[in-house]
């Protein structure tokens, strides 16, 4: 079946640098995408979302980019901090279906 996947399972970034976490999706019918952050022992925490009629959306220190041509989603975190260490998940929703399809996650490690 179609699914959301991630290019890199682990990403190590120097503190203060920008982080880019990538996600590929295969279903062209997907119209809503979300990024979540999950810290150890906690549930996923919503970061930012984007609808398919947009290419870019910015939040506080985060930016999500959507490239529908190549079915690619990315999360950019500016000035990465130790508190950004977590596993990051992308998820997609297909045409108002109730079921989100989740990627397997990317672990972000911050080097001091």
């Amino acid at each position, binding site marked *: 079946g179609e699914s959301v996947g991630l290019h890199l399972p682990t990403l190590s970034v120097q503190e203060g640098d920008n982080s880019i976490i990538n996600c590929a999706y295969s279903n062209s019918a997907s119209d809503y995408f979300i990024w979540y952050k999950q810290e150890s022992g906690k549930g996923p925490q919503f970061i930012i979302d984007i609808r398919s009629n947009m290419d870019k959306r910015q939040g506080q220190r985060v930016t999500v980019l959507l490239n529908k041509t190549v079915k690619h989603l990315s999360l950019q975190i500016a000035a990465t901090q130790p508190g950004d260490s977590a596993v990051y998940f992308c998820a997609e929703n297909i045409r*108002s279906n109730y079921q989100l399809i989740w990627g397997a996650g990317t672990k972000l490690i911050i080097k001091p």
Partner: protein
Amino acid sequence: DAGITQSPRHKVTETGTPVTLRCHQTENHRYMYWYRQDPGHGLRLIHYSYGVKDTDKGEVSDGYSVSRSKTEDFLLTLESATSSQTSVYFCAISLGTVNSPLHFGNGTRLTVT
């Protein structure tokens, strides 16, 4: 945490026993979900509810049932627990319509021995 409480936080049970996990929300939201999280699989939807007594199956519903008799409570039951159901279970609520972010509880770690 959007007012979501999951109980218990940890449980160890034996194969073949029934288990019920509880999700309680204080926000009066319509949509509630049960997910399981396993290494290498991300989160997978078990069941969801779109109102009192209105529930439907997710992608991994076999071996699970749910009930929602009140807006604030969504129960997940394993009728006869198996070792393959050892997992971390997350409840989530949706704050708006279906294309709205989900907000999650802190999970229940279930071990079936």
